[in-house]
């Protein structure tokens, strides 16, 4: 009985879905007399451990298409949404399906670096344009020093934050000396540290010490005692929020008065705000940014989803807009032409700032500096590279 019922419900659902889909199709054909259609895909983790990242990015994706009126140039946009559950294998499967069955010409996604790296190889091999809003690993667009021509991203890569952090430290905070603590087993913190060091030295600053720790360490007293003696202006802590909170607390206890500085790994409600008070970190976007583009975007998003857009929604929105703009410019559904248009994007006005692409498909665009102030994140400034 029960199974019968289930089957019945399922059949109704399928029928309903088929009706809706065919309905849509019919609709398309009706309006698209003389109009051309381009299919694009979206991949993101809509279930699993980073489900909220995927949901936010999808919201940004949908909003960009909606605001464009479902069109890019002469082309009507049709989209397919796919879930990779933040699993690299699943990402390859969904990308295969999008490319071979749905025959999409371009893909927005995925969200995390590991899934994006896996899917990007496939997209590139099949000559389908792919742009990720949030995959920050350099390996997304470059594989063994070989550029994947069809792959782009809408966010800056990890090492860039180090450069921006150092610029901010020397130019705005007028710092002359800095000490760095980094996790020697984590590419993210190594990348940020090295680029911070390079830029800081280039700007005339001096790195007093660069000390390593491992992920399981909880006692930093030895290196912090040394740093306390050196009295740097800046203590650069480019790790994720838990480790940073712990180091920050011990640093203050050792009498280090330096200003704390870090990267987007700080961006969590679980950061120890009391300890990190006064510290600065580099990130992709802030809803408090006073630029009119940001305000328009935040208001529009609030109107539709009733919440403040986070970095994922914003970067997803920017990536989709970049793609739509490229389709419009190329005025073609040929991925090779869209790719060229995308690569040629110049000073594209995105919510996260004006951006162009470098030769590796990474955007050249500003980063925002946020400060931990009164137990909250406050927008400080925007730093252009």
């Amino acid at each position, binding site marked *: 009985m029960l199974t019968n019922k289930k089957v019945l419900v399922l059949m109704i659902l399928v029928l309903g879905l088929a009706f809706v889909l065919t309905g849509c199709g019919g609709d398309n054909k009706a309006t698209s007399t003389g109009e051309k259609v381009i299919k694009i895909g979206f991949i993101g983790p809509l279930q699993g451990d980073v489900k909220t990242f995927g949901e936010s990015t999808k919201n940004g994706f949908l909003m960009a298409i909606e605001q464009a009126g479902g069109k890019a140039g002469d082309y009507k946009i049709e989209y397919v949404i796919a879930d990779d559950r933040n699993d690299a294998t699943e990402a390859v499967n969904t990308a295969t399906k999008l490319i071979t069955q749905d025959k999409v010409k371009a893909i927005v996604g995925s969200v995390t670096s590991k899934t994006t790296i896996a899917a990007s190889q496939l997209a590139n091999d099949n000559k389908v344009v792919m742009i990720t809003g949030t995959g920050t690993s350099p390996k997304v667009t470059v594989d063994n020093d070989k550029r994947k021509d069809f792959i782009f991203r809408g966010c800056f890569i990890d090492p860039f934050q180090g450069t921006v952090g150092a610029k901010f430290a020397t130019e705005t905070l*007028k710092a*002359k*000396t800095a000490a760095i603590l980094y996790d*020697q087993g984590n590419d993210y913190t190594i990348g940020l540290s090295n680029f911070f060091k390079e830029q800081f030295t280039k700007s005339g600053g*001096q*790195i*007093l*010490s*660069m*000390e*390593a*720790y*491992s992920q*399981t*360490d*909880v*006692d930093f*007293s*030895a*290196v912090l*005692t*040394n740093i306390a*003696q*050196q*009295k740097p*202006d800046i203590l650069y802590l480019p790790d994720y929020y*838990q480790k940073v*909170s*712990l180091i920050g*607390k*011990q640093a*203050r*206890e050792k*009498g280090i*008065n*330096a*200003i704390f500085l870090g990267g987007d790994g700080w961006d969590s409600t*679980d950061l*120890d705000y009391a300890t990190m*008070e*006064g510290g600065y970190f580099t990130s992709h976007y802030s809803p408090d940014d006073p630029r009119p583009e940001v305000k328009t975007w935040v208001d529009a998003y609030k109107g539709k989803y009733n919440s403040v857009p986070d970095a994922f929604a914003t970067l997803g929105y920017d990536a989709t807009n970049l793609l739509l703009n490229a389709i419009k410019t190329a005025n073609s559904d040929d991925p090779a032409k869209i790719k060229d248009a995308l690569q040629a994007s110049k000073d594209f006005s995105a919510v996260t700032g004006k951006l162009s692409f470098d030769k590796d498909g990474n955007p050249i665009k500003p980063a925002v500096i946020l*400060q*931990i*102030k*009164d137990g909250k994140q406050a927008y400080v400034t925007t730093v252009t590279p």
Partner: protein
Amino acid sequence: MGGGEKPPPRFKNRSITAFSGFGPLYRNRQHSLLGVDMGVDVLEHVIGQVINGLQLGFMYALIALGYTMVYGVVKLINFAHGDVFMVGAFVGYLGFNQWGMPVPVAVLTSMAVCAILGVVIEKIAYRPLRYAPKIAALISALGVSLFLEYFCSLKFIFGPNYRVVQRPFEEVHWQLAGISISNIQVMVMVTVLFMLLMLQYLLYRTKVGMAMRTVSLDHDAARLMGVNVDSVISVTFAIGSALAAAGGVLYAIAYPQIQPFMGIMPGLKAFTAAVLGGIGIIPGAVLGALIMGQVETLTAAFLSSQLRDAIAFGILILVLLVRPCGILGKTETEKV
């Protein structure tokens, strides 16, 4: 425009006086031999680092004591010890942060919970394997360790996330002749010394202690002499686990961030410390732990923070090559 603690700029008054000529020379290097400015306060700095090492060493000692005691009596390396330590830290944290207990009550609760946990672990995982080959019990211990880690990571137990511990009291630093000592450091040292004395008293001045030493020498002979081996081993696990719990709570106060996998690394280091001092010998555990703490801290401070563990463990290997039974270990062969 900073909040509370925006520092004044400091770059003008760099305190290089006596050896200012070495300043530029040093500054171009990332790791000088003494990772500090060559000032008159080098000695104070070194002493400061030694105190850092002492704190770390006493922390390892807190865990190493329980390890070595259980080994001494049962001849079993209880790999779950570090995870019992983790449970202790969590119960203590829940006690004084969530349930509003005063600190001593939280510590006692945590010790009681872990004592029971220790006895249960022994009953379920070790007792049935007591006469099986040693390796079986060892694997069982590893299993218990992993079980505790992943079970405690479940959402309805402690959850997989980091928890920030609100210290029940603030850390206070005392300046003694230019050397800074904190109340937490003092508390840790006093606790370890107290535990050490209590254990020595228990083992050498009480009936239970005598029973433990008897069991340690020979299970079967002890049973023939009327010692209840099972209950003696249970008591051993209860005490060892309670010690781990006390260590866990102190650890959570000293390094105020806890998570279900926090016991692995300290457990491993404490185990190494116990072996270094001579496993099964109570004062050896403390000695080994103090040496570990010093070597690690001084390596990170004056040689290289990157090579901290490599050099620290390298030295341990050297020590063990010279004295395979540990520093205080008995080298004479067992009588057959």
